[in-house]
């Protein structure tokens, strides 16, 4: 149910009794075949690549092997970037929650009596999706740049010393990640709050619960599913992102994340085994989080 937030369907009719028919195979096979060919086998390719060793004869070429030490080497070399990615992504997820939850509450509950305003507010939340991801990140870079308005104000206040910049710091990278993924946090929470029965809040008030108590004991637990899927939807792309942390955008050499390392190793250094091993480490980390989520919600509820 988490991901249906994007499809904005409201009523779901009770499912029809499912039939068994050869038509099912005809409908499923092409798509499933595609997913196996371009999702499953690439993952196998990554495993094979991650275990390769340098070709002793041709420099820059690799041959198939069982060189599991690649994993030890990349973890030893890049453990800082790996931990930094998890930390940045976790902080960005937290900030996105602090902004996204009240926003979702506002749209789903406060604006419920005004359907047109509600529709407009939803459009505003997804509006960032419609302007190029790279350009909107560059816009922040220019707003934060030393010639920009923010730096000027901060320098005159003395917060920013001479020669110090906002861009290229952990702050600007986390800021960018937070900004870019707020919609992913807001929409799933909105989807659960939209169906929230307002009479439950009335009941809480009738039972002498203060607004805070009612919120804590009624509203919050009932929106937990949305918060969980929003967290997942924000954390995953943030942990693997390499645009915000890239030197040309909001980062610097000190803010390199695991995505940057994978990109450099694959596309610049052409050290394919290292890039593949790091990708699989990231994938494993994400899979652990996802399996915790699946365990809670069950496979039928996934889509």
């Amino acid at each position, binding site marked *: 149910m988490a991901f*249906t937030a994007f*499809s*904005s*369907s409201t*009523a*779901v*009719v009770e499912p*029809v009794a*499912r*039939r*068994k*028919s050869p*038509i*099912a195979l005809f*409908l*499923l096979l092409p*798509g*499933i075949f*595609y*997913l196996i060919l371009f999702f499953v086998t*690439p993952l196998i*390719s*990554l495993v094979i690549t991650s275990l390769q060793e340098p070709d002793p004869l041709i420099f820059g070429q690799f041959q198939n092997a069982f060189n599991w030490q690649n994993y030890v080497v990349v973890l030893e070399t890049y453990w800082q970037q790996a931990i930094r990615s998890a930390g940045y992504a976790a902080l960005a997820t937290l900030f996105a929650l602090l*902004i996204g939850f009240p*926003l979702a509450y*506002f*749209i789903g509950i*406060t604006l419920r009596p005004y*359907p047109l305003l509600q*529709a*407009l507010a939803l*459009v*505003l939340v*997804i*509006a960032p*999706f*419609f*302007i*190029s991801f*790279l350009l909107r990140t*560059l*816009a922040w870079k*220019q*707003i934060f740049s030393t010639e920009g308005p923010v730096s000027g104000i901060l320098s005159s206040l003395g917060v920013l010393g001479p020669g110090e910049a906002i861009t290229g710091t952990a702050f600007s990278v986390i800021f960018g990640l937070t900004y870019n993924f707020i919609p992913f946090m807001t929409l799933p929470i909105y989807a659960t709050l939209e169906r929230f029965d307002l009479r439950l809040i009335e009941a809480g008030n009738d039972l002498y619960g203060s607004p805070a108590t009612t919120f804590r004991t009624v509203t919050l637990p009932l929106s937990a599913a949305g918060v969980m899927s929003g967290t997942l939807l924000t954390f*995953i*792309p943030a942990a*693997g*992102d*390499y645009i915000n942390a890239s030197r040309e955008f909001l980062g610097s050499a000190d803010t390199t994340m695991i*995505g940057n390392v*994978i*990109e450099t190793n694959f596309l610049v250094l052409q050290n394919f085994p290292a890039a593949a091993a790091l*990708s*699989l480490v*990231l*994938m494993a980390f*994400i899979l652990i989080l*996802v399996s915790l989520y699946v365990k809670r919600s069950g496979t039928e509820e*996934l*889509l």
Partner: protein
Amino acid sequence: MKGFGKYAIWVYSAMAFVFLLIPIVYTIIFSFNDARRTNIIWRGFTFDNWLNVCDAQTVCQAFGNSVLIGVVATLLATTLGTMIAIALVRYRFRFRNTTTLLIFLPMTTPEVVLGAGLAAQFLQAGVPKGLGTIILAHTLFCLSFVVVTVRARVASLDPALEEAGRDLYGNPRQVFWRITFPMLLPGIVAAALLSFALSFDDFIITNFNRGAEVTFPSFVYTAAARGIPAEANVIASAVFFLAIILVLASQFSAAARRRKLAKQG
């Protein structure tokens, strides 16, 4: 206290909306900048960039590539995804949980991993990178989102309508094309628009599989080091306005319909 809380959420949300809009407004404003080489400092208002977008030839070419990739990948993903969505809701089959997981996992896999995996596979198979490999990659990540979007529509379909069609001696093909498909169409259109938007704005997966081809986002990424031409802002702004008009129209018509229904009920 209660009154204060009521205002606080309005103020907080208004601030959040302004925050969300800042870089969008910035990008649009700078599409009107009379920039010479780099578009960083405001030099005065002009319509030139809008009137002569294709003066920056590489931008226009990159835009053309992105549209072509988006259209083909959307057609492929929408066709395959709609078929899966119908099967998931309507039919009973073995390996149902495995199938669901197979559709769910690409959405939770970080883009770098999808990109690197496909690139590793193309490398091992000796497939040269180009428009074809970009399209194959985009179809993959759009597919799951199509399934999710269309599935919701299939699930909300009233089966009595199809039964009525069968009772009136419609053969399965007639029932599908005259009843089921038109009813599913809004969901399919929504899925196609979502696919196109995802494909058009994708950078990470594209970057791993593009070879020497340039798409609009990859153009912006490469140009970022030297300075983005204002024409790039023009294209991004034009796409933004188009998308916003489409979404506003559909949202408002849906809201108006709900209100009408509420009045009748």
